[in-house]
């Protein structure tokens, strides 16, 4: 009994200490005087590997998810003679939910895991310590550009996902199943609200980007510097950020879309 209480206390302290280290790492990485001359090229390289290289998977999955929703929605809506509502159905489900969430899950798998593995290997091969030896702050040189790159590129990826998915829905709904193109767009424009739907979707993706990139860089920076430790940290990044994204999504939806 006493042992169980002790292990509970041990775990609690372990979790809180981890949160504290993550917070300290984030603060000391991003709270600093910016140095554009040195920081800009680093950020560019990270934007390339985090953002540009994720484009393909985002565009492909966005197209197919839009097409699937249009197909599924059409078969249900046509039973009520309401296939004119296909446009808002596709647009609202993509902009409010699927765009930010699916992008976040793909981003965690595609970019988050890569960030953790890269930083973890830097730690295991003592590159981070060497940087410190040369009086270069690894938080500033390694962590900060990766964090900002993730925070910038994920909302953009999410917007691209949503746009491509709505075009995919247009492809299936209008070009294949024969919903009128004007109806598809005009009913969508009447139903979708700029601040209520689009802006809230962007806010969601910014929140997810913050959480995922934070977890990814922290897990890499904090990993046990062995091959096993890196593999665990990479798994933990994907699993934890996916779970947190799904949980946060419910909270954000409850805050944003209930009256």
């Amino acid at each position, binding site marked *: 009994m006493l042992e169980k209480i002790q292990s509970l206390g041990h775990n609690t302290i372990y979790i809180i200490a981890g949160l504290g280290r993550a917070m300290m790492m984030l603060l000391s990485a991003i709270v600093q005087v910016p140095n554009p001359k040195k920081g800009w*090229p680093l950020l*560019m*390289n990270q*934007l*390339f590997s985090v*953002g*540009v290289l994720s*484009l393909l998977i985002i565009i492909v999955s966005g197209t197919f998810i839009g097409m699937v929703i249009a197909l599924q929605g059409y078969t249900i809506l046509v039973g009520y003679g309401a296939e004119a509502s296909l446009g808002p159905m596709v*647009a609202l489900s993509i*902009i409010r939910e699927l765009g930010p969430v699916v992008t976040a899950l793909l981003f965690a798998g595609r970019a988050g895991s890569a960030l953790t593995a890269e930083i973890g290997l830097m730690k295991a091969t003592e590159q981070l310590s060497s940087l410190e030896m040369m009086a270069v702050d690894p938080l500033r040189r390694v962590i900060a550009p990766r964090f900002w790159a993730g925070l910038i*590129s994920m*909302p*953009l*990826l999410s*917007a*691209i996902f*949503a*746009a*491509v998915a*709505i075009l995919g829905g247009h492809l299936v709904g209008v070009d294949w199943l024969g919903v009128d193109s004007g109806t598809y*767009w005009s009913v*969508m*424009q*009447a139903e*979708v*609200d*700029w*601040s209520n*739907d*689009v802006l809230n*979707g*962007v806010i969601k993706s910014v929140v997810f980007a913050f959480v995922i990139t934070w977890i990814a860089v922290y897990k890499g920076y904090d990993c046990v510097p062995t091959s096993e430790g890196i593999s665990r940290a990479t798994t933990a990044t994907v699993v934890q950020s996916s779970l947190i994204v799904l949980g946060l999504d419910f909270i954000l939806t409850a805050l944003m879309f209930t009256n």
Partner: protein
Amino acid sequence: MVSKKIELLVGLFVAIGIAAILMLALKVANAGIAGNGETYQLYAKFDNIGGLKVRSPIKVGGVVVGRVENIKLDQEDYMPIVTLEIYSNYDNFSEATSVSILTAGLLGEQYLGLDPGFLDEELDIGVLQPGDFIEDTKPALVLEELIGQFLFSQDSED
């Protein structure tokens, strides 16, 4: 050092992302037309607003000329007051304008239909000014009341 190719690709990525946000704003949400533009307000008091909602369209002959901005209940006589937000380029409605609550299709959304009356100086019918009340209002048709009236008239015929 960053190679030119990487800079080019990153620039392209950011440009596509911004284009996607613009497309969502303009093509999907139509923010440029619905949200902005000068408007003025009119009021109308109804017996019953049925399923009218805030942001429901206001139409003249099918053309959207504004949106419902607010719906509240008059505390004195317990009748709903609807605030109409009309685009400023339609500022020449006469005081004889009537407004009715209509339904788009059998099960569709409800909207406000304006029926612009005529201007007549001899009869002293002028232009509606911002903040005026539209006097001539027709309430929403409530299906249950219609059925009730129908049954009642059936009874009286027997």
